[in-house]
């Protein structure tokens, strides 16, 4: 019976292997299978977490929050399942997910393996820069062959994107935690400008360990095949920061706010990489000034609008007065 199950699993692995080999360059199926894997693990976790959680409060932000926390719980499990080789049962042969979406938790998916290698490679970035050598060194440190760098079609861009995704996830966790504290009444809600400043500062500080090599990373992100992914990461980062800052707008403000924050973030990042002041004080001062600029612009825009409205009303009044004086306003 056990032999039969093992045979079935091997058959499934082979089928998965053949399907992945057939489409080595397509990233979407991989992403889909990754999410299905997370989803299955997540469903089990969601059941447990949701069945004993009471219905939540009336706040609109809590809904998304619950989903986020359930998802982060499942990601923690998946992450711990793919922890560094130290405590995981060594299984260097990666097997691929079968088509039904069921994931056996002893087997690792290709995405998880890639994530493991890239995380390990980050240790070697200061030595080798953001390059294939760093990835090869990372693979070797996990006991894998350095030829596994062949898995990464975008080369060192993959490493940078992985690092950015990691930083974004960390920031979202921090912001979610702060949000929770405010919901529970354990912390005071910050003003929007302060919140944005703290969020951007926290996020940029994650680059400090790699700041020497960061210009290289930024130029890697500018390569045409990396641009879509880096823009996607940037836009999700901006959306997350604004969401936790309390933005719930559903009109053009949605776009203008995110565009403004993108400008602030990108310019501050550029200032940071050539900043030599102690603890990057100049960068944070620059950030403060930029945020203040945006706040001032918003205030000015409001003033202009209300002035405009007052002027229009004045003109309408004048027009009605003229019509009255000339007798055009009489109704018969």
């Amino acid at each position, binding site marked *: 019976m056990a032999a039969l199950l093992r045979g079935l699993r091997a058959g499934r692995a082979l089928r998965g292997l053949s399907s992945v080999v057939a489409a080595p360059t397509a990233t979407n199926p991989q*992403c*889909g299978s990754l*999410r*299905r894997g997370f*989803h299955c693990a997540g*469903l089990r976790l*969601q*059941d447990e977490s*949701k*069945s004993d959680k009471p*219905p*939540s409060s*009336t706040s*609109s932000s809590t*809904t*998304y929050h619950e*989903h986020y926390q*359930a998802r982060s719980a499942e990601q923690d499990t998946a992450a711990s399942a793919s922890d560094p080789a130290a405590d995981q049962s060594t299984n260097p042969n990666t097997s691929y997910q079968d088509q039904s979406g069921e994931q056996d938790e002893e087997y690792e998916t290709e995405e998880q393996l890639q994530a493991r290698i890239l995380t390990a490679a980050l240790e070697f970035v200061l030595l080798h820069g953001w390059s294939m050598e760093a990835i090869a060194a990372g693979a070797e440190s996990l006991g894998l062959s350095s030829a596994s760098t062949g898995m990464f079609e975008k080369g060192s861009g993959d490493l940078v994107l992985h690092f950015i995704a990691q930083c974004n996830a960390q920031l979202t966790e921090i912001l979610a935690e702060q949000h929770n504290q405010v919901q529970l009444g354990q912390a005071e809600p910050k003003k929007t400008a302060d919140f944005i400043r703290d969020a951007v500062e926290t996020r940029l500080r994650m680059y400090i360990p790699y700041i020497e090599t960061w210009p290289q990373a930024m130029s890697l992100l500018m390569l045409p095949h990396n641009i879509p992914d880096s823009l996607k990461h940037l836009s999700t980062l901006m*959306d997350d920061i604004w*969401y936790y800052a309390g933005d*719930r*707008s*559903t*009109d*053009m403000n*949605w*776009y203008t706010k995110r565009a403004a924050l993108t400008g602030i973030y990108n310019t501050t990042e550029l200032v940071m990489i050539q900043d030599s002041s102690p603890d990057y004080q100049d960068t944070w001062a620059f950030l403060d000034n930029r945020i203040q600029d945006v706040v001032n612009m918003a205030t000015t825009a409001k003033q202009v609008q209300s002035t405009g409205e007052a002027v229009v009303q004045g003109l309408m009044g004048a027009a009605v007065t003229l019509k009255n004086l000339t007798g055009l306003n009489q109704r018969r």
Partner: protein
Amino acid sequence: MQTAALRAFCHWPQSNSTAMIRQCLKCRALTLQQSSRAYGVIPPPRDSEEKEMVHRMLRVDHAGEYGANRIYAGQMAVLGRSKTGPFIQEMWDQEKKHLEKFNEILAENRVRPTALLPFWNIAGFALGASSALLGKEGAMACTVAVEESITEHYNSQIRTLMEKDPERYTELLQVIKEFRDDEMEHHDTGLAHDAENVPGYWLLKNAIQLGCKAAIYVSQRI
């Protein structure tokens, strides 16, 4: 009545226990909330395809209600003080409620609104005002055309959701059905107020409906 129907869904025998637990929790949550709350209208998406589909639907619905709002605003600007004013005002108030509900849903689920909103702002107002300049019949004809387009659009969304999974999208289906019924009522009101008497009714109606179709197509994507 809504809550009773939802409780019925809760006790519906389902083979998938996870969905049942989620439904029951949503039922409990909904009965504790005010009926205007958008909490729990959209189920948490299972994967990015579903999220994309649902977000697209919500985006275009939001754009549609926003446009309808502006059309009625344009009509009121011209005909507000005539005797059809109160009828247009009533329909406008219902559209305002629809827009409010969609604003809540979008904010709740972090859906990106369409980038063309300023364009729909101006275009809607212009359409409403120019159709009202043709007189009361013109305004009513515009209403008939727009409401017919919107009704058709909501119906196709209802069909899509029913095909996919009616139980999963119960609340969303409820919202869309309710709004669709309101729009049909507006359509009938328009017909009752001599919409068909406007000269060039067929031409006007089809031109407006063509514009609505283009607007829906574009708002889904941008």
